[in-house]
Each structure stands twice: as C-alpha cells, then as structure tokens.
C-alpha cells in the first residue's frame, strides 16, 4: 500500500479497494475507460476540426483586410421635418443621397495619434484608397487602388507574403504591384509598364514591380502613399486610416471607441461581415452541442456498467458494512473508482484524439493559389484549451455518472444483501 502514500491515511483502504476492483475488473474496466476515452476523442477531434476550420477561414478573411476602417462619414440626407432652418442652403425638397466622392481626412496625423492610444489597436495606417482603371494599349480594366507605405501596408493587408514575382517593400513612386489575375488580363509581367487612371481623372504610367496572388478578389493594385495622393489629387492628405487590432473579435469596441473620440466613421470588419461572424457562432454552438451529447452518451454507458458492477458486489458491500464500513466509506470506494476511470479514460482519449488529429492534418489539398505551398486538406488545429476542457468535462461527467451507482451501493442494507 506504499503507492497510496499521497492519499490521506483514512482513505487508503477505500483507495486500495477501488484500485483492486478496477484491476480485477478486466473487461468491465476496459469498457468504462473506453467509453470515457471515446467521448473525449470525439470532443478533441471535433473541436480541432471545427475550430481549426474557423481559424483558417477567419485568418484568410481578416489577414488581408483592415480590422477597422476609419473614413469621413457620408452625409446622410435628412427629411425636411428635421431641419430647423428651412432657408438654409442645405435644405432640399427631395431625399437624395450624395454621390460618393473622396473625402479627405485633413487632420489625419493627429487622428492616427489618437487611434494609436485606443486599447487593442496594433497599428493605424494612413492610406489613399479609390477606384481606377489599368490599361496597356487595349481596353482599360477596373482596379482597386491602395496607396500606402509598403512596409506598413504589409502589416495591414500583407502583399509581400503573397508575392509570386518581384518585390513590394522598397517600392518606388513610379512603380506598382498588381495581382496575378490583373497581370494575366493585361498580359504584363514584372518590368512592364501599365497606365493607371484614377477616378479623379489623373493618369500615371507605372512599372510593374511585383505580382501577388492572394487566392481571393481580383483587380488590386498597390502604389506608394505619395503616388496614391497624386493619382487622386489629394495633396498631402489621405482619405482612410486602416487599423489592425490584436483581438480580432474586439474590433467592434475599438470602432466604437474611435467614433467616440474622432468625428469620423469607424467600421469594424465583424460588422461588415456580420453573416460570416454569425455563421462562426453557429458552428461553435454546434461543436459544443455535439461535444455535450457525446459526453452525455458516454456518461450513460459508464453509469450502466458501474450499476452492474455495484450489483455484482452487493455481497461484498454487505460484508464490509457488517464489519463497520460506513455509508460514506462505501460511497468513497465507488466514487474513487469513477474518478480513476475518468482520469484514465480522459487522458487516453486526449492522447488518442491528438494522434488522430495529427494523422488527419497530414494530407494536403490541390492548391487554388498559384505559386504557394498547398494547404492542409483538413485545417485541424490542436487547441490545448479545448483538450484540457474535454478532459475536465469528461471527468465531471464520469463523476456524475458514478455518483448514482455509488449512492446505491452506500444505501445497501447488509441484512438484505446477505440473506
């Protein structure tokens, strides 16, 4: 009984008996441990798959977009009844939305400083964004233009990591980086010149310095901030401040805080992609639901095996009680058995689950992104929090499942069972 040295002296007999029951239980013990392990494997595998998938989708979506975009607010038309001064030149008898136009953030340097003080903000990048056309002799093709400092732009919407040719960081003012689809449509490669015309009407001839492929969207072009400002005739001004945050799902609070500090509109990615976020929530909820059901199912299996084992041991329980064992001692024997089953089952289940997750992470899929290493077919991710959570949940479920058989054992009347 030296192995029981860590156990309080008073409980050592119960612990020894519980352990012996399990060791001599053979198939029954394996069955219960297996039931717990199966439940944990399902939880570990499912959460790795679903949350891995979510992480990949979220990463793919958010790594290439700003988390909060700060612009000048569009003037909303106001009904006449809300205007106090009907003679004001702003009043109109028709509700008509103003045509979209580029609006400068005049005091952008101060605005950037203010935004950087907001908690959870990783970086704030002043930029020029707008629409334009790219052409090379033939028909012009629509492009989305972004003018920003390359090194900082890489932090907001990475370009360098998606490059398949040329360079982005160190871009000169007469150079442009365009996406793969656009390059294909224009039949240009690195070193060729393209004409870029902005929606403001300014045209520049720029040399293609790099080509990137992001696997989503098409028709993007990146220039320096200086070139962007001159293409859109903005002087020293910008029309947008792009913000990246640390906590992706805290971007709404960041946007609200910015709006309360500055007279500009701040839009959070999670509000722009509301359906995406709500589908993530629905996925998480179903993962939790399935996990819960699988743990409940294994609890029932455990409870039924333990009830049978208690019934088989009723004579033993009777003799122990006749020798002075109390209800709580009997309860302890069977609860300890449950605990040992729970620990053995959940740990082996977690190990098995992780092995399974690892095996499933091996196959690669045929890539949709030219020039990139293929992605995993199943984007599983081993998440220690969920594995720990699965172990704890399985232990709690098993203890609950073993509580009822243990209670039943404790209540047995020795006179009845030994007749």
């Amino acid at each position, binding site marked *: *009984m030296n192995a029981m040295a860590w156990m309080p002296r008073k409980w050592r007999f119960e612990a020894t*008996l519980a352990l012996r029951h399990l060791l001599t239980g053979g198939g029954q013990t394996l069955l219960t441990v297996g039931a717990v392990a199966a439940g944990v494997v399902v939880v570990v595998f499912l959460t790795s798959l679903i949350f891995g998938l979510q992480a990949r989708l979220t990463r793919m979506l958010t790594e290439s977009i700003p988390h909060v975009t700060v612009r000048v607010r569009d003037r909303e038309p106001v009904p006449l009844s809300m205007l106090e001064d009907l003679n004001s030149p702003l009043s109109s008898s028709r509700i008509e939305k103003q045509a979209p136009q580029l609006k400068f953030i005049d005091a952008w340097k101060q605005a950037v400083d203010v935004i950087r003080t907001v908690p959870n903000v990783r970086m704030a990048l002043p930029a020029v964004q707008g629409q334009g056309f790219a052409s090379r002799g033939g028909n012009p093709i629509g492009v989305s233009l972004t003018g920003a400092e390359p090194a900082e732009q890489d932090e907001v919407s990475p370009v360098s990591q998606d490059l398949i040719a040329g360079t982005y960081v160190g871009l000169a003012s007469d150079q442009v980086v365009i996406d793969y689809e656009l390059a294909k449509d224009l039949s240009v490669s690195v070193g060729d010149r393209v004409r870029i015309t902005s929606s403001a009407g300014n045209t520049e001839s720029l040399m293609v310095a790099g080509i990137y492929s992001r696997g989503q969207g098409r028709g993007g072009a990146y220039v320096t901030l200086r070139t962007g400002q001159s293409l859109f005739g903005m002087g020293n001004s910008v029309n947008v401040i792009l913000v990246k945050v640390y906590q992706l799902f805290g971007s709404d609070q960041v946007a609200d805080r910015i709006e309360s500090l500055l007279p500009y509109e701040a839009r959070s990615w999670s509000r722009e992609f509301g359906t995406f976020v709500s589908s993530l929530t629905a996925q998480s909820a179903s993962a939790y639901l399935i996990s819960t059901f699988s743990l409940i199912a294994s609890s029932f299996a455990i409870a039924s095996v333990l009830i049978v084992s208690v019934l088989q041991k009723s004579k033993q329980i009777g*003799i*122990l009680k*006749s*020798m002075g*064992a109390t209800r709580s001692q009997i309860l302890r024997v069977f609860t300890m058995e449950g605990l040992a089953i729970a620990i053995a089952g959940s740990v082996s289940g977690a190990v098995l689950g992780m092995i399974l997750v690892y095996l499933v992470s091996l196959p690669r899929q045929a890539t949709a992104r030219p020039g990139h290493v293929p992605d995993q077919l199943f984007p599983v991710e081993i998440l220690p929090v969920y594995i720990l959570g699965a172990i704890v949940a399985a232990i709690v479920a098993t203890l609950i499942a073993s509580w009822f058989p243990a209670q039943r054992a404790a209540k047995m009347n020795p*006179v009845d069972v030994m007749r």
Partner: protein
Amino acid sequence: MMAPETPEPAGRIVVETRGLKKTYFGKVETPVLHGIDLAIREGQFLAIQGQSGSGKSTLLNILGALDIPTEGQVQIDGVDIATLSEDQLAALRNRVVGFVFQFHYLLDELTCLENALTPVLIRKGEANAEETARVIALLERVGLGDQLHKHPDTMSGGQNQRCAIIRALANQPKIVLADEPTGNLDSRSGDEVFKMMREMNRENGVAFIMVTHDDRLAQEADSIVMIEDGWVQAVDKHEHRRKLLSSLKEE
C-alpha cells in the same frame, strides 16, 4: 423466556436483550421475535439452535447491531443500540462485534492477510506493524502462515473460513457472532474450524454466539438455547446430550 444458565464463572455481560421483539413490515406484518431476554457474558460460548425460519438469523443480526429491534432493549457493550446513529452503529460493529457467516465472504480482490486485516483497515485506513504482527500470529496459529499472500479463490473452503474467523477477531472484539460457520464445510474441516473457534474463545476471552444445526457441535458449547417460533428456551445440556446419545444408538 428465561435467561440461559451460565455454567462457567459469571463474567461481565457483553450483550443483553430485554423483551426484544422484531416484526417485519412488508405487505403483511410478520412478527419474527416475540420478546427475548438473553444475556451473554465475557468468555461465554453460546450455541443457538432452531428450525429454519425460527428467527435465529434475525436475532443474530440484532445482537450484532446490524438490525434494530421493533420493541424492547438491546445493550451491546453497555450501550443501548436504539440510541445510536447509523454511523455510530457501524463504529460499534467495527469495534465490539465480529461476524462469521456460513459463506466466508472474503474479498477476492484482497489477499488472505489483507482480508484478515479488513476491520482494522476500515477503522484506520492502514494497519500498523503491531496490528499486522498480531493478525499474522493469529493466522499462523490457525495454520495459514504460508497462505498470507494468497487470494481466497486459490485457497480451500476450510482455509477461507479460518481466515474469516481471524478477520472477525482482528479488532479484538468483545463478541463474535457466527451464523452456521461450519454449514458449508465437510465434517473434518468443520470440526477443525469449530475447534479453532473454541480455542480462540478460551485463549482470548471473546464471547461467541454460534447458530448451528449440528447437535454435536452445540454439545461442545458452554450453553445452548433453542429458538422456536420466535421464542427462546434454554436447554439443559445434559438432557440435550442424553437425547443426542439415544438418537445415535437408534441409527
């Protein structure tokens, strides 16, 4: 309904009943014991005889604090068991009473030595060196010295029953209650087990109450009581012996 005579010098009373009645309340009310007065003294060896269903086992359960009377008083080691809680009854059984059943009821998961130590383990969680040595000495005394680390399923019926008797003695109780302890053994093993019980009784001064069908073994007890339909009757041992001899002659 009279107290049994005690031929040996009167010791302290360890178990005493006064007007003990027991009724089972099932679908029908079944009175089992109708008012029993008994007193068992230190070192006494009492045999209880009676037909099956006469209430012997019920009486034994109550004398061992496994069950409580419907009416009347039972004092075990000077304590009225009606005043005790469930846990206090358990502690009383552990400290004062030892049980031996017709079947040994040893735990297959434990070795012979661990089984014999069970009452100590229940009380303290662990046995100290002195208690272990004492129990080993008792096991050696009944010829189980080489069986200490064997499990019950590898031992013979007689060996198991001897181990069960040492288990009943492990906590140095005041009284051992034996319900047909030889009933499941062949006559040779039965005799050995009985002889051993009698020796333990004499050497340690523990009172024994033994329910038995075996008239020959009952004859070896200090006194005999007969239970008939829930009433107890003391038996004159000499009369009992005479009847026994005459029945042997007839065979």
